[in-house]
């Protein structure tokens, strides 16, 4: 200390979260309101007209499941039931795979509990020809697009049924056919790539969008800035989603600069329409995504959407959240659980009931269990993956190279030479 403390106001500030283990979670400072009086503007509105939408919170459902307000989307009960089913399936698969990770069948797993509405509602609000650039917590996108669950499970088991030959950690899916870009474990990189995809789509005069995801923590990466800047410069048809689930492994969102301004408001500085939505409100997520997609398709360019939600589980199977936050924080989250809320809404509008819900959960649980058995029969890290070691040397380049061929020969797996 070179100066007496009384001489200066200068001091280094380090943000700290509201609660640490041992604290009783208290979110009473969050005033849960219906919709912050946020109207739904015309989709081609000037970006600065969304300033209040970037600072407030767009909601459709109240906590009793009653939907109303200017963002109430036109959506059939069938779509909502499809969404409910996909969210349930996502959660049941997550639970199953996490348990199997604990049994040593797979090396790693990442759940999306509490955030299922973001992936599922958004996927149902865009077209199948739109390319999604996901993070590793968007498994709900594949499920909502009816991707074969067995293939997802085989990917997680790193076995012979994995179309990517076990080259990636579990949950790092890829499917061009299902509009799901290859996931990178390096955070943020896909955000700017999605802008390139969207620019290509526009150059080709196609109607297809790109839709990308980034976490609250990773908005601190340069790729986030690149993406917003390029999307604005070239008016790219892309939907740029920030999933603010409050936690980046053990760092709360304040460590990414979230304390002084909403993440959505970052978009305004780039001249992008920016919306902040209750990420646990299926109808609101659906509505803002429809709005952003239509804006992009009509030439209005990109929209930044912050999904305000909560990561209800640890970061991954390698994480222990009780070391850095109270276990009760998830249940105290004032915006509830996305599955429970959509279920309640369907019941309120007379399109669902507990008996049907329980029957669906039973059906899906059986389906997940049976599908897992089929997947595991093809191998696992524990029992042997069944992946031919020779494949390790393939696909680094389009064609085999003499160098790799020689390394394969030395390693004992063979050669491609005649």
């Amino acid at each position: 200390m070179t100066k007496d403390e009384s001489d200066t106001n200068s001091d280094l500030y380090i943000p700290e979260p509201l609660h640490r283990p041992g604290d009783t979670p208290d979110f009473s400072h969050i005033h849960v309101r219906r919709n912050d009086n946020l109207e739904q503007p015309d989709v081609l509105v000037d970006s600065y007209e969304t300033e209040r939408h970037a600072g407030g919170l767009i909601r459709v459902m109240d906590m009793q499941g009653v939907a109303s307000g200017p963002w109430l989307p036109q959506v059939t009960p069938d779509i909502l039931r499809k969404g409910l089913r996909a969210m349930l399936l996502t959660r049941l698969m997550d639970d199953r795979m996490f348990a199997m990770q604990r049994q040593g069948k797979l090396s790693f797993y990442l759940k999306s509990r509490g955030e299922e509405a973001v992936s599922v509602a958004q996927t149902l609000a865009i077209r199948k020809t739109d390319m999604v650039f996901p993070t590793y917590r968007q498994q709900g996108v594949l499920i909502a697009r009816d991707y074969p669950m067995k293939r997802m499970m085989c990917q997680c088991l790193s076995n012979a049924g994995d179309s990517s030959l076990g080259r990636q950690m579990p949950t790092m899916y890829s499917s061009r056919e299902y509009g799901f870009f290859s996931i990178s474990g390096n955070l943020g990189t896909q955000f700017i790539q999605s802008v390139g995809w969207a620019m290509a789509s526009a150059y080709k005069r196609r109607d297809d969008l790109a839709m990308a995801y980034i976490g609250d923590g990773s908005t601190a990466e340069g790729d986030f800035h690149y993406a917003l800047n390029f999307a604005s410069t070239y008016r790219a048809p892309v939907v740029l989603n920030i999933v603010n689930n409050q936690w980046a492994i053990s760092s709360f969102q304040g460590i990414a600069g979230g304390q002084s301004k909403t993440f959505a408001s970052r978009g305004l500085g780039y001249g992008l329409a920016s919306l902040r939505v209750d990420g646990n409100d299926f109808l609101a997520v659906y509505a803002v995504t429809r709005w952003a997609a239509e804006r992009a398709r009509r030439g209005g360019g990109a929209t930044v959407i912050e999904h305000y939600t909560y990561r209800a589980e640890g970061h991954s199977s390698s994480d222990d959240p009780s070391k850095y936050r109270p276990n009760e924080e998830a249940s105290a989250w004032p915006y509830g659980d996305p599955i429970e809320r959509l279920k309640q809404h369907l019941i309120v509008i007379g399109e669902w009931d507990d008996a049907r819900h329980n029957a669906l959960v039973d059906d899906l649980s059986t389906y997940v269990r049976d599908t897992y058995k089929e997947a595991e029969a093809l191998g696992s890290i524990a029992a042997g993956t069944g992946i031919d070691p020779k494949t390790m040397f393939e696909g680094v380049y389009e064609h085999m190279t003499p160098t790799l061929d020689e390394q394969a020969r030395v390693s004992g797996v063979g050669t491609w030479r005649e």
Partner: protein
Amino acid sequence: MARMNMIEAIRSTLAYQLQKDDDVLIFGEDVGYFGGVFRCTDGLQETYGLKRCFDTPISEGGIIGVAIGMAAAGLRPVVEIQFSDYIYPAYDQIASEAARLRYRSNGDFTAPLTIRTPVGGGIYGGETHSQSPEALFTHICGIKSVIPSNPYDAKGLLNTAIETNDPVMFFEPKRLYNGPFDGDPDKPAMSWDSSELGEVPDEEYRIPLGEARTIREGNAITILAYGTMVWVAEAAVRSHGIDAEIIDLRSLIPLDMKTISASVEKTGRCVVVHEATRTSGFGAELAALVQEHCFYSLEAPVQRVTGWDTPYPHALEWHYFPGQARVAAALEQVLEAA
């Protein structure tokens, strides 16, 4: 047949690719209306339109990230990083994304993009306009690295690079843009008019990646070089009357090991020359490969002539640059070794 410098050879190749394939897009800092700080894209926007050749924000990470997304979507972007010294913000996108997209997705997505970037010093560019970072890319599997030393090769290699379905780093030795350079800054600049490699056929041709060019045949010693140093080595050999074989690698990844081995087995001696800093430079890889493949033919240890392990200095540029004297000294030492 036309006389061209390397800038004209590159520009005409880019024009041909734009003409041939609607999926080819060119972008980067100042490449559009202005035509690039080295003029490699001069006139392309005017001829082929705003959407085919355009300016980007000053954002190397953004340029490469966007190019990857476009390439994955089916386009064939050819981007310029204005100086290779500026490429580091894009390193994550190149090393972690472009290079690995094919592998990690098992061919589901690929990134066929070409990254053009000027390298090397000798233009008083100081530490931020002179670097030769090729080894940072040859170390990354999944990308190819190419470096022409003359207009003829620049055209043939660039055509191949753009049409290759893997990401390619295309390093352009900026000291060679306007003419060959023998390493002596006090001599008047030479033009490519004086070299037969400045004769660039009008018809399109491709030079396969992974085929070296033997610049000069010889029996006493093999010199492995690329880029600017090809011509410095050639001048050193000529002025000292050394019976050296000079191999211009042209492509570092893939590498023409056959030509290298055949030459070193013939001469029994080898010197590796590059402008980049020494430690963990590509010369280390070459020296290791030569001893792995040719140890029993070698009559002397392999030597490296390189830039020093310092930042590229401005005022002391010619003390840093591995000129003819350093090349000749190494050649004589290796030739004299028992």
